[in-house]
């Protein structure tokens, strides 16, 4: 096949068009970036945030490999080419090389942007460091592509990547904290994601870091190329199906089907295969079922802990400020949403719970709220206790645990559950209306947001407001008890209303 491939020879017109368009676009992009950033974010900002951001990018590349990856084949290729007597490595290697080159070029482009953002232009860095910065980020980008392929070609790696993802995000946060507080170049020396920013950051040792970056990338890229034949037709087939399903889901705003397609492409989740003895009381049946599901999908616990703890710390460390309070509310909502996955499973196949449990759907929905509420309450209460113990928050924060926490957690969980009841898809009539909406009209966008995410908006307003009220009292030395009572009243009233709404829900179609 390689010998029959026609060499690529662009025409003069194609070259001319590429150069002209590239120059025009390049000028606009440079102007936009420099005007947005105003000449740089500073070396200190780069050292504190850069390694963490790039670590998350590397993680993202690995996770991408767990459900798609840098090498893909169309359905036609699968049927005709992959089943032909041709070595898989011969088919995969050209595509992998292509992806590595494209990755490197993309990384080089990011390097150019980074030079503008950090230093205001190559003149400030000098020619050597500018070239080194571009090369370093190009090599990191190729490393990401190679990691993506290594994960794509190994089922076990895909499982492990998903399991460790929350820990990696926490580690990235640790890099930020460590670089900001302990040693500014801690992140820069932490791994390839840090070595690759060394030319930009400058200082002593950057050539060594560059060398480490290039060496590590070369090793991983060579390893990936050696594994070109390690993939199976089944793996490519699943990914091709996922692409089709995602594309179809995107057109109809069916984000639940998109999520299920994405999940189906990934290897089975690693979890604890523990046995939990069944309870005697019928009221605990769903709680028991949810506990088993949570134990068998450990990453959900990780993500919920990350979101819930992050939200709590954000609210404690920025009292009285609206934006952190709203972000905290969003974090709690999404933590609850992650924990409500068993409810979503019952919404996907509503006949299942009706057949096995013969409970009304309202009872099933409310039963599915128990474990998320208990888990989220434990996460947030634990975070408050730890925050007070290490001095991040004052002892007054302990007042929050028995009071505000109940209403906050209940509201977040019930809102997430009612959102899950919608099935993760937009009603057909609404979809038609959305597609016909005027994109230039703010009213249209308000309608879209209100219809697509009403429960999230309710949570942001209610919990964001309640958290702000209490924080405001703390900051301005007003009566925290009064503020707490008001906040409990607000969240309690909303939670009570949501319970009423939940009691009247019917089984999805």
């Amino acid at each position, binding site marked *: 096949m390689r010998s029959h491939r026609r060499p690529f020879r662009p025409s003069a017109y194609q070259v001319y068009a590429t150069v002209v368009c590239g120059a025009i676009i390049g000028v606009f992009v440079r102007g936009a970036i420099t005007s947005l950033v105003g000449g740089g974010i500073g070396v200190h900002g780069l050292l504190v945030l850069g390694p963490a951001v790039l670590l998350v990018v590397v993680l993202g590349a690995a996770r991408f490999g767990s459900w798609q990856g840098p090498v893909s084949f169309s359905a036609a290729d699968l049927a005709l080419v992959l089943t032909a007597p041709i070595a898989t490595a011969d088919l995969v290697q050209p595509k992998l090389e292509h992806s590595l080159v494209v990755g490197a070029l993309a990384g080089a482009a990011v390097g150019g942007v980074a030079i503008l953002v950090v230093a205001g232009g190559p003149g400030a860095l000098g020619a050597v460091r500018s070239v080194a910065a571009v090369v370093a980020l190009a090599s990191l980008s190729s490393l990401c592509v190679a990691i993506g392929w290594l994960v794509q070609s190994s089922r076990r790696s895909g499982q492990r990547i998903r399991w460790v993802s929350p820990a990696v995000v926490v580690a990235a946060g640790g890099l930020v904290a460590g670089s900001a507080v302990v040693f500014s170049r801690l992140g820069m020396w932490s791994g390839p994601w840090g070595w690759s920013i060394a030319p930009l950051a400058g200082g002593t040792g950057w050539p060594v870091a560059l060398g480490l970056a290039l060496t590590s990338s070369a090793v991983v890229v060579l390893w990936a190329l050696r594994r070109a034949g390690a993939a199976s037709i089944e793996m490519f087939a699943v990914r091709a199906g996922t692409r089709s399903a995602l594309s179809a889901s995107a057109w109809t705003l069916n984000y639940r089907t998109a999520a299920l397609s994405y999940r189906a492409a990934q290897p089975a989740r690693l979890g604890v295969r523990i046995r939990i003895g069944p309870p005697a009381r019928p009221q605990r*049946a769903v709680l028991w079922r949810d506990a088993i599901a949570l134990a068998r999908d450990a990453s959900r616990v990780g993500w919920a802990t990350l979101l819930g703890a992050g939200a709590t710390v954000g609210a404690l460390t920025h009292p009285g400020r609206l934006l952190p309070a709203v972000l905290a509310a969003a974090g709690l909502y999404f933590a609850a949403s992650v924990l409500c996955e068993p409810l979503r499973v019952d919404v996907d196949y509503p006949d299942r719970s*009706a057949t096995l449990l013969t409970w009304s759907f309202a009872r099933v929905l409310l039963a599915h709220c128990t474990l998320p509420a208990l888990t989220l309450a434990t996460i947030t209460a634990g975070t408050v206790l730890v925050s007070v113990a290490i001095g991040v928050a004052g002892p007054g924060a302990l007042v929050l645990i028995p009071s505000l926490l109940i209403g906050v957690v209940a509201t977040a969980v019930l809102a997430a559950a009612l959102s899950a009841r919608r099935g993760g898809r937009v009603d057909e009539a609404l979809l038609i209306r959305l597609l016909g909406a005027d994109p230039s009209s703010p009213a249209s966008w308000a309608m879209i947001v209100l219809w697509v995410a009403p429960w999230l908006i309710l949570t942001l307003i209610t919990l964001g407001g309640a958290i702000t009220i209490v924080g405001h009292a703390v900051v301005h030395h007003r009566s925290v008890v009064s503020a707490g009572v008001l906040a409990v009243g607000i969240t309690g009233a909303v939670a009570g209303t949501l319970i009423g709404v939940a009691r009247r829900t019917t089984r999805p179609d």
Partner: protein
Amino acid sequence: MSSLPVLDVSGLGRRYGELTALHDLDLEVRPGECVAVIGHNGSGKTTALRVIAGLLDPSAGSVHVEGTSVDQGVGAIEARAALALVPDTPSLYDDLTVREHLQLVAVAHGVADADVDARIEDMLGRLGLAEKLDAMPVTLSRGMRQKVQLACALIRPWRVLVLDEPVVGLDPASQRTLRELLLEAKRAGRAVVLTTHQLEFARGVADRAVVLSEGAVVADGPYDEIVDGAIVREYGLL
């Protein structure tokens, strides 16, 4: 056999928009009786069973179990719970083992007593699933998942068992086991309603046959008379 029906369906109807899938279905099933609902594809058999089991809301009519409406009023929930459905397509949780499915059903219906595990093992053993107690549904064949679904219906208390195409995917030995279970249920005074295209399976189990066509009842009588008569040929069932 008691004269009072344990399942009383009266004037049942179901529409899907302009399409009438079921209209004016009357069906009485007495304790110890098995009724086979038969008909060609699209005749409304599955719709009838799903409406009776409460998975679909009726457009008209009512369903009573032992004189209590399953839709509204006092005792509706208990009446609904007295109906056990085995759907035509097995639907199990991907993250629960076979044993855990039956435990979940037993707990939810308040029968998770001290010997529930022994009953679960006995039930699954009879259905040829003794080796699959701790297997996940994704590792089971369709026939095995169908047997798990059947076990989930049988492990809990019920007065009326509703089975939609129960023998699809079952091997001959499992079909014989299913016949034995249904005969035992009848001897215990419970009622069974099933749909099937395999008329020979239901012979010797079903007491009556109800023939549906275009959503309406066209024949209702003793099973052997209906199945051996001209009407099954007239409606394309043989």
